[in-house]
């Protein structure tokens, strides 16, 4: 095997932070090379150096690609050499068709005039290559995230990719889609495309990767071969310690009934007559962690948001009770007053004001808590933020730091701090560990455990079944806007959850037919 890429002693400094400190990475031609590391360890920064987002000269160290020193001035430079990166946030334009997106910036044109028949034909070929069965004229925004991911890969193929970099490609995918993507990666490997995958999901890495480089705190810790790959070893290298258990030990001690939803329904906000939530009833006791499992798009987020101040949908019906008494949750303010908090799935778009410092984000949902007669007490605000920084171990030089500069795990802790400051009795956590590395996940789980031990109720929505099984006392299974089953901790298994969903799907299709 020949070496395709060698990065030597890469050091990248941001104002006040050394993001990369003499990192080395060697990628052999034709392999799938995984990069693991905690959030903020520097994986994405390293890939940005490689792909020209940070041009040559803004970092120290050297890159040898295909036997030549690589001096990228821009992303375009690196793309010309066949290095293509697919970012975590997909860069497709939702209102344009697949064909238009595929050849964006690389149009099939002579003298600036696009030949659409040719573009459509080429798009068709590329889509076949990635196994996506959609017409080239389909509008991208109407397709699911999994299909969009395939379009991104098709786009890379159209540019004669030699080194494909995938930054957490399956983070937003359901299991079936993720599986298909991993298969495609192996197929591309067979065709000779070298790939680098950044992922937090260790089982995926074990499946596709030939070698793994673990990065910790901006330096490369180790490179492991396929034979050496084991979850425990990777985790140990990532966090610098052995992790006997991936979930904190806890003894469930459910108390009195805290939160009850009875016969809750709501309609789609735009499409008239489309019922999204169909008569859902569920409950959470004090000190209990309850999960909601289900595939993506089955209405879990919609359920949570519709309960939390009718933030989703219209035509709400049903009752919500706290401590046995019906409460008014018709606005977010009232829901918060009733003791309910909702930590959103999408923390950047819905949870944080990225350009504001940590302390202003933490106080946001309870400004009256730091004010006297509507006048802010900034000293108290700083104390509160400082308190949560210590309590939740938010890693930052100070609470004046803008949250945009924090890693995903630390951003999530800021969002949690914000909601804890509202003194909730019930926390609804929507995908609380999405895009967070193993070490930070454990910390988030520990926080959840502490919350339960304080006698609060936790309702957790997650698409990662292992974490539901590892954390929850009870799991509701949701499908098509309905609760289709309830499993206790002892009964629950991935198979049983999937079985409930599949059985329900069979029923619905039966009805339609």
């Amino acid at each position, binding site marked *: 095997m020949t070496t395709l890429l060698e990065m030597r002693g890469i050091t990248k400094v*941001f*104002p*006040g*932070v050394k993001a990369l400190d003499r990192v080395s990475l060697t990628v052999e031609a034709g392999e799938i090379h995984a990069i693991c590391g905690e959030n903020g360890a520097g994986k994405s920064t390293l890939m940005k150096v490689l792909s020209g987002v940070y041009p040559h000269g803004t970092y120290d160290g050297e890159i040898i690609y295909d036997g030549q020193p690589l001096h990228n001035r821009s992303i375009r430079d690196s793309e010309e050499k066949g290095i293509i990166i697919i970012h975590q946030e997909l860069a497709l334009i939702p209102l344009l068709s697949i064909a238009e997106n595929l050849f964006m910036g690389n149009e099939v044109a002579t003298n600036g005039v696009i030949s659409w028949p040719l573009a459509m034909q080429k798009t068709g070929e590329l889509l076949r290559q990635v196994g996506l069965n959609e017409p080239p004229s389909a509008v991208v925004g109407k397709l699911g995230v999994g299909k969009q991911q395939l379009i991104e890969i098709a786009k890379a193929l159209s540019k004669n990719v030699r080194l494909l970099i995938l930054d957490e490609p399956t983070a937003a995918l359901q299991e079936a889609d993720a599986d298909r993507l991993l298969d495609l990666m192996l197929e591309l490997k067979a065709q000779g495309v070298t790939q680098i995958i950044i992922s937090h999901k260790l089982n995926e890495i074990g499946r596709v990767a030939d070698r793994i480089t673990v990065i910790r705190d901006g330096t490369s810790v180790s490179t492991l071969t396929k034979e050496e790959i084991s979850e425990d070893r990777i985790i140990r290298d990532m966090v610098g310690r052995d992790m006997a258990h991936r979930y904190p030990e806890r003894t469930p001690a459910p108390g009195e009934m805290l939160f009850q939803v009875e016969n809750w329904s709501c309609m789609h906000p735009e499409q008239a007559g489309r019922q999204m939530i169909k008569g859902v009833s569920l409950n959470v006791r004090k000190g209990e962690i309850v999960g909601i499992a289900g595939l993506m798009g089955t209405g879990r987020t919609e359920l949570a948001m519709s309960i*939390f*101040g009718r*933030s989703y949908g219209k035509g709400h019906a049903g009752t919500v009770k706290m401590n046995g008494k019906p409460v008014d949750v018709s*606005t*977010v*303010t009232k*829901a*918060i007053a009733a003791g309910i908090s*909702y930590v*959103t799935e999408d923390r950047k*778009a*819905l*949870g*944080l*004001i*990225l*350009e*504001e*410092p940590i302390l*202003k984000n933490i*106080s*946001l*949902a309870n*400004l*009256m808590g730091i*004010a006297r007669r*509507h*006048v*802010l007490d*900034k*000293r108290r605000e*700083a104390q509160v933020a400082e308190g949560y920084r210590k309590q939740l171990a938010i890693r930052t*030089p*100070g609470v*004046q*730091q*803008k949250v945009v*500069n924090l890693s995903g795990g630390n951003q999530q802790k800021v969002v949690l701090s*914000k909601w804890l400051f*509202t003194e909730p009795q019930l926390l609804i956590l929507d995908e609380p560990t999405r895009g967070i590395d193993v070490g930070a996940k454990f910390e988030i789980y520990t926080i959840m455990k502490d919350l339960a031990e304080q006698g609060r109720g936790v309702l957790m929505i997650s698409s990662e079944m292992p974490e539901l099984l590892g954390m929850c006392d009870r799991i509701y299974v949701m499908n098509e806007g309905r609760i289709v089953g309830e499993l206790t901790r002892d009964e629950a298994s991935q198979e049983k959850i999937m079985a409930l969903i599949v059985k329900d799907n069979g029923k619905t299709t039966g009805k339609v037919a």
Partner: protein
Amino acid sequence: MADNQSSLGGHLRENGMLLALVAIVALFSVLVSMQGKPMFLQAPNITNIFLQNGHVIILALGMLLIIVAGHIDLSVGSVAAFTGAVAAYLTVVLKLPISVVIPLTLIVGGLIGAAQGYWVAYWRIPSFIVTLAGMLVFRGATLWLLGGQNIGPFPKAFQAMSSGFIPDLTGIGKPHGLTLIVTAIAIAVVIWIGLRSRARDAEFGIAPEPTGLFWGRTLIIAAAMAFVGWQLASFRGLPNVLIVLAALTILYAFFTENTVQGRRIYAVGGNYKAAKLSGIQTERLVFFCFVNMGVLAALAGMMVTARLNSATPKAGTGFELDAIAAVFIGGASMAGGSGKIIGVVIGALIMGVMNMGMSILGVGIDYQQMIKGLVLLAAVIFDVYNKNK
């Protein structure tokens, strides 16, 4: 470390603005004296900067809130003209006393703001469209109310709003005693506030700006205030307008930085959805910003009408652009969520000083427009450059 950066960056921005203002004043002083004309910074000129630009500052205060909330208001010039005409109609035609006219006109302004804010806040109609419509509607309404004529002149009491001076309660007369006392108090307050916020920064673990820089800046501000105070005292004293401006500036600076509702407006502009999901009544706040803008537009409209001593159909043309320019020169972001009152006031003063300086120098209106446009562009480029650095 990194937060030192951001706080230094913040100080840099404010210091830079102040420096730019000082530099522009110095530049005009030199240029004017080179032309052999009387001193640029003489009392009548200083007085006039405030009299002639008071309305821009007032509009810019309201415009900052709107822009921070992520919106824009193009209608303020027309609303100022219309409310000025309303005030004229009430005073001159209906002969109502000024104590009735002023509150009534402010209410009309508030209602206009509410009428526009309703569509923006509750119907999510883009503010650009709503206020563009408002700009046309209220320009037309002004013409209709005035019947295409000017209405004037006004009683002395109404004119005093824009051209009056505070009485000298000390009885010294020349120099104006009360003016000197107010100036001294103001200087003391500025130094006290500076020291207090410095102490607070230190307590929060924000790296304070270097001592030399702090005192250098504070002394420059104090010296400038002393100079302006002395000049005004030796002329006719503090203009009423300046008192109104100072009071409003302090009020709005306090509101935006130290109150719950003020902070929430920044949150709405910073991330509307996150603010909404944090229990902030986003619609109500946006609505409030527009009502507030309407009231301030009415105040500005009355001040301009009083200064011209006549309500005219053409009044207020281009005010909205002056106010918006002052906000952006003052460092607010087009995307919403950021900007400071003090920056906006300095931004408006920079424009005012340039207007006056170029007029004294005899620069034609053609070049004045071009230069002002370039200054606006340069200020924003400076901001963006600093952010990306």
